[in-house]
């Protein structure tokens, strides 16, 4: 349903304020939904039509149970599209609708201007509907069980994408000259500088010759390697090279496209929510609130920013960090002079009246993602003020406990959970392993093991798509391990890898 005249009036008012503040967004189309429609669309990831799949049903089940028992309620939803679509929940108090609208304009501005969203499809509404149409055709032809089984396998590897791929051209398109007969490059080994009479001693001919041979061999190996460079976009690689039927290939491309579409939202969770919260707070408190709405606004706002001990609230961290940046740039608390100042008291009272804050936060929202945002702007003062800590699991008691509050460890842990969207870094090293068309994946181990049972099952799914055995090199409890799956059996072998404690003799385990 479209906006009622009253809501439309409010919307125009809020939109006016947003533009006054300099927010810049695509047209926003608001719709008012009943709670069950809201749950339905939320379960579909914000879109009114999706291809048939049980996981939307599961999501819906969770949302409606949460709503039925009064535990949760979706206030707003907004999708990155041109025009932006935003949904309001019918029956919410007017002040809530105001907050939601102000919040939505913040998101809409972020979607349009943040660099990491610049490569997303702005006509995703249509694209997603197309996906549904294609998927329905396959289901009609092949039956739901068969199609769904493949979708599940594809979803199992949906996180194996290269988050930076939209911005970097990694895949080299073959050039004409590559296809022509390649001239043997002239390979010369590097000579050390020498006087002519010393030449045969400093650069002996046989050594040079051996070196040239080695280089030649290396380039030859590289040319034969497949893929030539390690490939992080596993979905793309399978879509291009796995022996699949056409519909399977298409499903992989659908899953991949949707994964890339949602990726920037995962990459900028803190910033995006922080930005929207920052703007709803400013618009409401400076412009839109009437006296009678203050209490309800405060209640809602504090609910949004509430923290529980176990997890960080992206709204909270985001808004506080944006405010901190604004404050620092207003007062000139940055740069060499400020950094090198030893007097804590002077630092505290530092104020150069620069007034650069507003400009700075708009710049930040344009170029950063969560990782760079935290890396650049998290300060020891901020960590202390916000009472951030690192927690870990204590095996002896089975509890999660606070480990420490040190700035560096907090920052490091935070960055770790954000890098690669908190997903392990996995890439294809060799797709023709042992010269038998087997796939060799490498997990770049960064101190945390893969969830073992999940890894094994994911490997099975990969093997089913690749149709050949698949291996992954990882570290399990400090030992380099190669997990292999030929589609049915899974074997594990201890191997020597960098970063692991010890290689040890190869021992085979049959789980």
């Amino acid at each position, binding site marked *: 349903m479209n906006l009622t005249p009253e809501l439309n009036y409010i919307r125009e008012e809020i939109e006016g304020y947003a533009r006054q503040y300099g927010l810049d967004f695509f047209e926003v189309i608001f719709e008012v939904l009943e709670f069950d429609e809201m749950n339905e669309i939320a379960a579909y990831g914000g879109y009114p039509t999706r291809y048939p799949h049980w996981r939307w049903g599961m999501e819906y*089940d969770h949302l409606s149970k949460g709503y039925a028992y009064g535990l949760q309620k979706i206030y707003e939803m907004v999708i990155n599209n041109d025009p932006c679509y935003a949904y309001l929940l019918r029956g919410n108090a007017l002040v809530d609708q105001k907050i939601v609208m102000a919040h939505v304009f913040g998101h809409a501005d972020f979607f349009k201007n943040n660099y990491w969203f610049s490569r997303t499809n702005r006509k995703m509404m249509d694209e997603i509907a197309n996906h549904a149409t294609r998927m329905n055709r396959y289901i009609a032809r092949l039956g739901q*069980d068969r199609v769904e*089984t493949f979708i599940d396998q594809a979803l199992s590897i949906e996180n194996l994408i290269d988050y930076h791929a939209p911005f970097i051209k990694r895949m080299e398109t073959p050039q004409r000259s590559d296809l022509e007969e390649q001239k043997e490059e002239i390979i010369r080994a590097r000579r050390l500088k020498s006087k002519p009479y010393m030449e045969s001693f400093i650069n002996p001919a046989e050594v040079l010759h051996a070196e040239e041979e080695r280089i030649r061999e290396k380039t030859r190996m590289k040319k034969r390697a497949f893929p030539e460079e390690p490939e992080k976009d596993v979905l793309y690689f399978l879509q291009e090279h796995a022996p699949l039927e056409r519909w399977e290939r298409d499903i992989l491309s659908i899953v991949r496209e949707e994964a890339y579409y949602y990726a920037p939202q995962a990459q900028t969770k803190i910033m995006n929510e922080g930005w929207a919260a920052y703007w709803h707070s400013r618009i409401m408190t400076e412009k839109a609130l009437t006296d009678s709405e203050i209490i309800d606004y405060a209640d809602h706002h504090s609910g949004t920013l509430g923290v529980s*001990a176990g997890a960080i609230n992206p709204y909270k961290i985001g808004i506080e960090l944006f405010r901190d940046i604004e404050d620092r740039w207003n007062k000139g608390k940055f740069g060499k002079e400020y950094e090198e100042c030893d007097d804590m008291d002077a630092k505290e009272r530092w104020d150069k009246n620069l007034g650069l804050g507003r400009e700075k936060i708009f710049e930040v929202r344009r170029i950063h993602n969560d990782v760079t945002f935290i890396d650049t702007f998290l300060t020891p003062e901020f960590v202390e003020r916000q009472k951030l800590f690192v927690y870990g699991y204590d095996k002896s008691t089975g509890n*999660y406990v606070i480990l420490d509050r040190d700035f560096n460890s907090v920052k490091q842990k935070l960055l770790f959970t954000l890098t690669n969207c908190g997903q392990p870094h996995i890439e294809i090293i060799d797709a023709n392993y042992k010269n038998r068309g087997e796939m060799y994946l490498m997990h770049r181990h960064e101190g945390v093991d893969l969830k073992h049972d999940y890894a094994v099952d994911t490997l099975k799914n990969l093997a089913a798509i690749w149709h050949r055995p698949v291996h992954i090199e990882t570290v399990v409890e400090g030992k380099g391990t190669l997990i292999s799956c030929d589609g049915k059996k899974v074997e594990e072998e201890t191997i020597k890898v960098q970063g692991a404690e010890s290689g040890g003799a190869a021992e085979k385990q049959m789980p």
Partner: protein
Amino acid sequence: MVHRIDKDSTRFKHIVRSQIRKDLKKYISQGELIGRKGKNLVSIPLPQIDIPHFRYGTKEKGGVGQGEGEPGTVIGNDAAGTGPGAGDQPGEHILEVDITLDELAELLGEELQLPNIQPRGAARIVTEKDKYSQIRKSGPESLRHFKRTYKEALKRQIASGTYDPANPVIIPVREDKRYRSWRTTYRPESNAVIIYMMDVSGSMGAEQKEIVRIEAFWIDTWLQHNYRNLERRYIVHDAAAREVTEDIFYHLRESGGTRISSAYTLCNQLIDERYNPASWNIYPFHFSDGDNWGSDDTQECVALLKNSLLKKVNMFCYGQVKSAYGSGKFIKDLGEALPGEENLLTSEINDKEEIVDSIRTFLGKGK
């Protein structure tokens, strides 16, 4: 309103119940949501299917949190398996919110492939219901619709030009008056009564009663799912029969002889008094260990069934529970004396495993 998501929802539920896509079974976990119902905390089951990914284990991973506390402060535990943040005020008693009885009945129906019950004479039995939803020009003053009458009068006065905005007095005349009126709707009604009868003679032990109780629960659930108005009556008998409450029915332990006919007589009497077969769907269920006192009494039972009971009921179900003391003869006698009676259903229940088969026998006909 039909939602598009219903299809996905149903599919998800089927997968959770392992009716389809059994390959996903191992990924199904039973999550829970902690809710509040009145003063109690309740656990709402939240089945979940997790597609495996390459990802980190939560335990090793740890993370960043926000709030008070010294190093070493516990912020969550692993009991629920969900990591920190889960759980709400530990130590309070949490009740399970199970699936609704309706869902349970559906499950039962699907599992046993029970047909939906065709209520007897549903079309014949109608009830009238009056609803005041209309307006008429005549009627008793007590039903006068003030607002409509006023509106009519206003309209008339404006039309005839006698309305004076400076002195807005509206005087209705007889033609202006409007009265509330009703409309009668007819709807078919299906009422049902279950009459449980149980032998509580000395030979029926705790185990036998347990079986009866489980079976009665499922029968109840299924019939409740099929009928909006369901009544239950409970009769116990040894040598004599009497009507009891549900609670007593399940917990009474008597001793003494057995005269089944006494229960059948009482059952017949109940039906005659209260449940006119023309407007009620009647389901007598009788459970005993098959031991009856003398063949004379069995003859009497057969006569009762044949001449009156079977004509009045949708079906008469006799479940014979095995016991160490009973002769188990009654079921044979019934079968021999009343061959080919369509609405007499008998089944032997030797142990708990066979309850399912017995229910299928009883409810499988869709009557």
